[in-house]
């Protein structure tokens, strides 16, 4: 899933300052799971903004709230039009994709990002999320014991550890495991160390050229099976 962190109340208040009527728009998928912009965070932010307005004594804002199942999918945006009739701005608590999807869908209303989209990751434990995938477009997890060096090594290097690793940790952050030590240990356990001994050539940064687009191959596959 996509993991994000909500922006500070101060930054959000600065962004919405010119717009009196604000719709706070949550996202019911990734942002709900990572506690950054689901229904309850929308409600909490709504109350915080109101309270801040009252305290500052110069409030001009009115707030409404709404949460869709997925901001990144037009299928779930059909209900939006009626929610935005009397609105000057949308404060999206969707990830960066959600913000842009809403902006593309509506066109005439400014859309502001209420979260900083951070990475693609997994829930490590309650309240802790760890990055696991860099979406490089050339998955090599087969060769690295299921541990991604591009994501988990601070340098993203492909042919083994640098000399900076100490006590199994990374030179950039002593609290973070060295990805290549993890890979070595895992491959050793799997009796696949030969995979680490191979030479890996430089990455192809055009594996999928930016901006990336994927076309469904379903029809082609069906065609093949029919033919």
């Amino acid at each position: 899933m996509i993991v994000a962190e909500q922006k500070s109340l101060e930054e959000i208040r600065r962004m919405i300052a010119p717009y009196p009527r604000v719709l706070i728009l949550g996202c019911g998928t990734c942002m709900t799971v990572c506690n950054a912009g689901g229904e309850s965070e929308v409600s909490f932010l709504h109350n915080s903004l109101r309270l801040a307005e009252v305290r500052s004594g110069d409030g001009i804002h009115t707030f409404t709230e709404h949460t869709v199942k997925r901001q990144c999918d037009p299928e779930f945006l059909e209900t939006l039009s009626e929610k935005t009739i009397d609105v000057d701005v949308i404060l999206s608590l969707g990830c960066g994709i959600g913000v842009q999807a809403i902006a593309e869908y509506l066109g005439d209303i400014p859309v502001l990002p209420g979260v900083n989209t951070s990475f693609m990751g997994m829930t490590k434990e309650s309240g802790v999320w760890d990055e696991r995938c860099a979406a490089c477009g050339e998955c090599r997890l087969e060769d690295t014991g299921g541990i991604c060096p591009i994501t988990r090594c601070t340098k993203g290097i492909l042919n083994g550890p640098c000399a900076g690793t100490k006590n199994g940790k990374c030179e950039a952050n002593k609290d973070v495991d060295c990805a290549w030590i993890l890979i070595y240990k895992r491959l050793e356990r799997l009796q696949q160390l030969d995979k680490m001994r191979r030479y890996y050539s430089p990455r192809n940064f055009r594996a999928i050229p930016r901006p990336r687009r994927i076309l469904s191959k379903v029809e082609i596959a069906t065609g093949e099976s029919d033919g």
Partner: protein
Amino acid sequence: MANSLFEEKLNSGEFIVTTEVGPPKSVDVSEVVHHIKLLKDKVDAINITDHQSSVMRFPSIGGCLLVKELGGEPILQMTCRDRNRLALQAELLLAYSRDIKNVLCLTGDSVDVGDHKEAKPVFDLDSVQLIKMIRTLESGTDMGGNELGAAPKFCIGATVHPEADFIEPQLIKFDKKVNAGAQFLQTQGIFELASLRRFMQYASQFNIKILAGLIVLSSAGMARYMNNNVPGIIISQAIIDEMASVEKGKGLQKGIEIATRMIKTIKEENLCHGVHIMAVGNESIVPDILEAAELVSTPG
């Protein structure tokens, strides 16, 4: 035929001595020039560091040009941290055209340990891929598969960490560097010769020249600081205790003594093919070490 004076020396079978000079964060290069003049006739080659510890400074290639101008033999340290494959290849073309033909290929320290922590870390290539890339340039093509008008030829070095606390993955990488075409290895700073002996038992099966990296400590405090803050440095407690045993102000002298002692043992026991002395800011004392270790050599 040897490609550079340093390569000739590597092939000669004689004991090899290299040292390093770190360029300044300044446009005033007078101190570096002073150090190069002091060292150029006493060692076989001078490494010029490449934004060491990810701290922005006068560039390695600039320092190498100074070494050439002053009649010395430079080793261009090249990290993958700051340049993508276009920039790395271009700089190698420049280096060769100016008769800088020794290159030490490094991954490069993390941006996080340096003084521009918000910079974009590049690492388009890693050290093994950099060695391969140079060998590709030598074959007359760039990494894009395009023909070069004229191809360079380098003497390629790399590094290894014999004192790493988990050596097996480092040895796998060492193998890859040798297979990619490294001709010489300058090790990370070594403080216990036992680890060098163990490493050489492994490394002697390969046709590669190994220079033991020796860091000249100037105080117990510096040793502790390096242990905690400099990537790839593991200084044993015995050495820290020895540094701490002397009175204040005598630390550098002790550091020189330790380095000299290690060089003598390496040479007497024929442990490896040479030494690489890293004086980290105290370059002017390197001649004293060479003299004390009875190692005053001339290039070529």
